[in-house]
C-alpha cells in the first residue's frame, strides 16, 4: 500500500532557503556545520514532526557531524528535506539510514567539488573581473567602482543560483541530483571561466609592462621578477613572498633605479 507523504510546503522551503545563509554561523572543529545544518532544516523538521518526542529525535540526529561546501550544501539540504518527508510518513529504518547516508556520503565529495569550483575558480575569477576594471579605469575613481560592483554582481548571481536551485533540485530529485552535478553545463562553465581569467590576466600584465616607461632597467626587471616569483611561488608561503618582494622592490628602487 502506498503511504501518503506529508509534503513540505513552499513557504517552509523558503524559510529553509533563507536560513541556509547561516549554515556556518556556529561552525566548530568538532561537529563543523552541524548546528548550522539543524538551524537551516529546522522549519522542515517542525512541520514534519509536531510531536515533541519525534521532533527531539529529529533535532538530535541533525546535530551529528556535518561539513561540506556552504553553497553546494543546498543540494544536500534539499535532498535531506525530501528524505525526512518520506521518513515522517513511513517511519522505516531504511529511510532513516538514507537521511544519515546522504549527509555522510555526499558531504565530502561535494565539499571537494565546491572548493575546486567556487573557492578555486569562481572567487578568483570574480576577483579578476574586479581587478580588470579597477586597473582599466585607474585614472577615474568614480569608474573604478565598476570593478567591485561587477565582481560582486557576477559572484552573487552564481552564488544565489546555486543556493536556490540547489535546494529546489535537491528536494525534487533527491540523491539523483548529484549524478549530473559533477559533469553538467555548470562544470563546463567553470572551465571557460579559467580560460577567460588567464586571458584577462595576461592582458593586464602586458599592459603593465608596456606602461613601465622608457627605462630599459625597469623593462628588464619586470619579467625577471616575474620569473623569480614564479619559481618560488610553490615553495614559499604567500605572506613570506609578499615581504620578500616588498624588500626587493625597495632595494631596487633605492639602488638600481
Amino acid at each position: 500500500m502506498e503511504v501518503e507523504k506529508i509534503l513540505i510546503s513552499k513557504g517552509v522551503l523558503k524559510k529553509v532557503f533563507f536560513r541556509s545563509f547561516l549554515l556556518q554561523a556556529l561552525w566548530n572543529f568538532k561537529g563543523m556545520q552541524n548546528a548550522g545544518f539543524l538551524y537551516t532544516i529546522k522549519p522542515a523538521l517542525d512541520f514534519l514532526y509536531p510531536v515533541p518526542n519525534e521532533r527531539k529525535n529529529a533535532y538530535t540526529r541533525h546535530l551529528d557531524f556535518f561539513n561540506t561546501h556552504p553553497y553546494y550544501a543546498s543540494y544536500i539540504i534539499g535532498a535531506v528535506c525530501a528524505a525526512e518527508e518520506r521518513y515522517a510518513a513511513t517511519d522505516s529504518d531504511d529511510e532513516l539510514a538514507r537521511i544519515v547516508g546522504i549527509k555522510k556520503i555526499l558531504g565530502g565529495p561535494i565539499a571537494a567539488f565546491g572548493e575546486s569550483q567556487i573557492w578555486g575558480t569562481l572567487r578568483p575569477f570574480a576577483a579578476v573581473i574586479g581587478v580588470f576594471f579597477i586597473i582599466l579605469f585607474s585614472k577615474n575613481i568614480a569608474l573604478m567602482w565598476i570593478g567591485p560592483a561587477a565582481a560582486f554582481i557576477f559572484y552573487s548571481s552564481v552564488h544565489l543560483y546555486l543556493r536556490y536551485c540547489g535546494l529546489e533540485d535537491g528536494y525534487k530529485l533527491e540523491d539523483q541530483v548529484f549524478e549530473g552535478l559533477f559533469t553538467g553545463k555548470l562544470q563546463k562553465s567553470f572551465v571557460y571561466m579559467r580560460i577567460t581569467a588567464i586571458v584577462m590576466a595576461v592582458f593586464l600584465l602586458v599592459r603593465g609592462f608596456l606602461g613601465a616607461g622608457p627605462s630599459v632597467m625597469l623593462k628588464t626587471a619586470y619579467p625577471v621578477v616575474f620569473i623569480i616569483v614564479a619559481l618560488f611561488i610553490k615553495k614559499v608561503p604567500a605572506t613570506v613572498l609578499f615581504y620578500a618582494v616588498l624588500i626587493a622592490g625597495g632595494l631596487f628602487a633605492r639602488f638600481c633605479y
Partner: protein
Amino acid sequence: MIFGVLSCDTVLVGQFMYSRPLIAGPIAGLCLGNPYVGFIAGLCVELIWVRVIPIGDSVPPDSTLTAVLASAAAATAARNLGIDNISAVIPALAVSVPCGILYKMAEIRLRASNAGIVDAVRVKIIRGDFVSVDREIFYAVIRKFFISAAFFLAAYALVTALPEGYWRVMDITRGSEIVMRFIYILCFAQLFEMFLKWK
C-alpha cells in the same frame, strides 16, 4: 561598525562576497574619504592571498581585516601626514598583514569555543528547549560582530600610533611606484599559479 558587518559575511552570514578585500577595501577607504587607497590595498590583499583558500577545518589569514585595516590606515596617513596614496598604502599593507594573521588566531579560538556551545544546545534540545539553536545562532552572529569590531578598533589604534618615520619609509626608497609594481607582479604571479595549477 562597518568592519563588524563585513566580518560577519566572511564565514558566518551568507558569504555574499562583499567582505572580499576587493570590495571591503574601497568601502573602508570611502568611509575615510579616500577610496583610491582602498582600491589599491584591496586589490593587493585580494591577489596576494588568492591561493589561500579555506579547505576543511583550515582557517586562512583574515583578508578582510587586512584590507580594511590597510585602507583605513593608509587613508589616515595620507590625510594627516600629507603622503601620496601609493607611499601610504605600502607601509599600511606591511603592517596590516600580521594583524590579519593575528585575527586568524582569534577566529580559531572563537570557532573552538563554538563546540562547547553546540554541546550545550544538544543538552537543551534533549530537555525540550527547541528554540535553543535559533538563540545560539543569533548570539554567535552578535558575538562575531562585536569581537571583530573591537579587534579592528584596537588594531587601527595601534597602527595609526606608529611613528611618522615609519609612514615615511618610502621616502628612503624614492620609488613607491616601482615597489607597487613589484607587488602587482607578485599578485599576477599568484593569479596565474591559481588558474594554471589548481584542479
